[in-house]
């Protein structure tokens, strides 16, 4: 094996991004050092990532982090460790940026993990402690740093595994390549971890259909759905990751395409929709960039299953189909549904109706149940009919 050449294999966008991130980190921590040298208690002031400090911005239709801040003082025994971890993670990311690396959050966990041997002054015994023991500790301070310097981790060239896929009649530029998303054969284009660096070239589509389940995406793609209906087809393959969310948001913002989300008919599916639309509750600081307030919940809705006398809507399923396809809701489902009901953005008339049917019937349904009824039904009846008649929830 031999190296092919000695040129840089890195794309131009990455090189630019590194410079920007380095500067931001240095600025934030210089102030801290100045404080220490002048005898002031070193304190990090970071906006709180708590549920209480998560605000639903009704006007913009997304969650965002509020203004409440936490002061993390190094001289407080309860906060000293978190303070140390924050400085530690910042210094590691700083170093990776300088060295042209693309760490993952798992890498950062390993890079920062080391053992402190210290003497317990009360007993005189020497004990050991790790800077962190579990990745969730380092993940937490990475998020603190994102808030502190107001930058998403992707902008610091931190990569992560990526599940989102896309096909459709569109061309994009990623890195130094132009990719034609309509020429993927039976396969699909796997979205990069840093979709902000993607450039949209031209698009020939009328809407975006985001599907929770990869297998349903495969079926629709194979059957030629996007060609037939001029759509961009995206799957999040479950709970969407950050890149997929950012990609969808940009399709909405920059291309003005309507976004339809198709999930299982259960609180978990609703939550996936909610994450696309308003953002994640626990990570509200991301939403300004990742949420797509215009996203529409296409289905599968409880009314699609059970019909509605009030709305004069017949169900898409017969009694017998319901009997075989419906799954009994678990206690966790019920609990989650009740929780959703308390969120401001679910407290619309249409959503409350949806959740209440669920709580009453205690039943859920997978998208697969519709493809079981017939792929043609899903592709040529259910989806087009719902979009045409505006039968979705905003």
């Amino acid at each position, binding site marked *: 094996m031999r190296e092919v050449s000695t040129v840089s294999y890195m794309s131009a966008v990455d090189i630019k991004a590194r410079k920007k991130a380095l500067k931001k980190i*240095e600025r934030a921590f210089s102030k801290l050092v100045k404080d220490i040298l002048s005898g002031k208690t070193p304190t990090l002031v970071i906006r709180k990532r708590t549920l209480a400090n998560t605000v639903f911005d009704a006007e913009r239709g997304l969650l965002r982090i509020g203004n409440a801040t936490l002061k993390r003082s190094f001289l407080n025994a309860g906060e*000293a460790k978190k303070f140390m971890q924050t400085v530690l993670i910042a210094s590691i990311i700083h170093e990776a940026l300088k060295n042209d690396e693309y760490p993952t959050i798992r890498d950062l966990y390993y890079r920062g993990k080391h053992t402190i041997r210290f003497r317990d002054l009360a007993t005189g015994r020497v004990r050991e402690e790790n800077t962190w023991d579990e990745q969730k500790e380092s993940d937490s301070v990475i998020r603190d740093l994102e808030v502190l310097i107001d930058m998403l981790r992707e902008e610091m060239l931190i990569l992560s595994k990526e599940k989102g896929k896309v096909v459709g009649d569109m061309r994009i530029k990623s890195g130094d390549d132009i990719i034609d998303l309509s020429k993927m054969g039976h396969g699909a284009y796997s979205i990069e971890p840093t979709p902000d660096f993607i450039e949209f070239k031209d698009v020939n589509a009328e809407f975006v259909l985001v599907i929770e389940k990869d297998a349903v995406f495969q079926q629709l793609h194979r059957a030629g759905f996007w060609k037939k209906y001029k759509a961009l087809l995206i799957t999040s393959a479950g709970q969407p990751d950050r890149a997929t969310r950012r990609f969808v948001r940009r399709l909405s913002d920059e291309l003005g395409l309507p976004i339809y989300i198709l999930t299982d008919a259960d609180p978990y599916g609703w939550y996936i929709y909610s994450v696309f639309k308003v953002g994640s509750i626990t990570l509200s600081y991301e939403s300004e960039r990742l949420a797509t307030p215009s996203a529409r919940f296409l289905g599968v809705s409880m009314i699609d299953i059970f019909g509605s006398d009030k709305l004069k809507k017949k169900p898409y399923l017969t009694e017998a189909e319901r009997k075989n396809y419906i799954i009994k809701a678990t206690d966790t489902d019920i609990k989650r549904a009740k929780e959703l009901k308390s969120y401001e953005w679910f407290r619309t008339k249409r959503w409350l109706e949806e959740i209440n049917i669920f709580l009453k019937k205690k039943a859920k349904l997978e998208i697969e149940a519709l493809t079981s009824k017939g792929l043609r039904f899903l592709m040529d009846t259910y989806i087009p009919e719902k979009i045409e008649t505006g039968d979705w929830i905003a």
Partner: protein
Amino acid sequence: MASEATAEKFRALTPSEFFYRNRELAGFSNPARALYQAVRELVENALDATDPHGIHPTIKVILQKVSAERDNIFSISVEDNGIGIPSAQVPRAFGQLLYSSKYVLRQTRGMFGLGAKMAVLYGQMTTGRSVEVLTSTITAKNIYYFNIAIDVKTNTPIIHEKGVYRKNNGWHGTVVKLYLEGDWTRSKSKIYEYLKRTAIIAPYAEIVFEDPEGTITYFERSTRKMPPPPREVKPHPKGVDIEMMRMMLKATKTKTLLEFLIKEFQSVGEVTARRLIENAGLLPDMKPHELSTEDVERLVRVIKSDTKIKPPSANHLSYVGEEIIKVGLKAILKPEFVTAVTRKPSVYEGHAFIVEAGLAYGGEIQPEDRPVLYRYANKIPLLYDEGADVARKVVDRIDWSHYGVTFPAPLVILVHICSTKVPYKGVGKESVADVPEVEHEIELAIREVARRLKRYLSKKKREREEAERAVAIAKYIPDVARGLAKIVNNVREEMIEKELLKMLNMKLRSFKINSVSDVVVGIE
């Protein structure tokens, strides 16, 4: 009909025959239990012959196998330095059931007053051998020797042998020796546990025990302080039922009902007596033996429902006292911390009682998953049926974490109830029933000693905490200094380290950290 009907034969049993047939009632149910019970009865008699009379007990207990071939026959000898038994009383005291000095209203250790006699009877039926007694009272000029058996059919003593010896020294006390079938292997741990707990509650006693294996255990006297002796008192009116009232009315030498009530009862003065008589619809100058059955019933009922009679006196109760309990726990358990409390007297159903509690923590005590409980009633250790005892219930109910204890913990609780009438739960008299008044007192006593433990533990904890807080910060100084020095240009790691330590030290009250390396030994 009834062609098979047979005539029944009626006959009377003497008390000795009855208990001979039902020996398990007094704890002599099998060889293991009998050996334990015999030791216990004789030791308790020995203590009752000493401490209530102001004598510091010195007790020798010797348990021996009688012969090598028959390893289930034992001799028990118990010697005390007590007040001795008048020679005229000795035969009946050891050879007649239901004959005792303990049938008075005063707190004594015995269970039913059956004591030594049951041991004698059990010995007699299993080995055929009689009891030997050597005794002398304080004022006697002689020492008396008796060899006595019980005539079971008639419940009378048979004196096999009697001897009188001139006393040269001032010795007084009693030595009892008897023979019985026993099971040492299965009773060993209970006998040792019994003696240990006796030594805890009576640290003013000196107890020597030689067991059948020849091992000698010496519980030394750890204090000369003794609890106040109990005294005999008149009955409290609330503790008297119809039958007893009738017997008292029959036996009294007083002339009128008024005089009877005032003189034969405690807590009854003239005002009270007149009120009771009037409420019962009687007359003050009725002759006591003239009251009809209905009169007596009414009088007792009026007394029970009267709310103004003074509570009973606790003069006759012999509590152990905080000082002695602490000495006992300290001497035997060697704990790190010890405390005790004696509660004020209280009353249930007309009976006075006192609760005492002791607590020992740490030191040589082994940690257990819950508090170890030592229960006593009238200074007798209770070893069986702990699960059913109200004290166990109280101890288990208490949330010990509230007092700074998390289990496993080295914690021993002692609870002592003294009363002329301890409310036992079962007929075995091994556990105390959950009478609300008693339960309440036990809880107050235990919570008091628990609070004292908490104060002790809190102080210890506070001192540890400041040091922990300082370390919790100092140990991170090197990582913070290095991290910042890496990010920020032109700053030396050592400089940041120095400044951070200076700030930390300014916050500490009781000590300073000279160098970060005193805390951080290494970073790997």
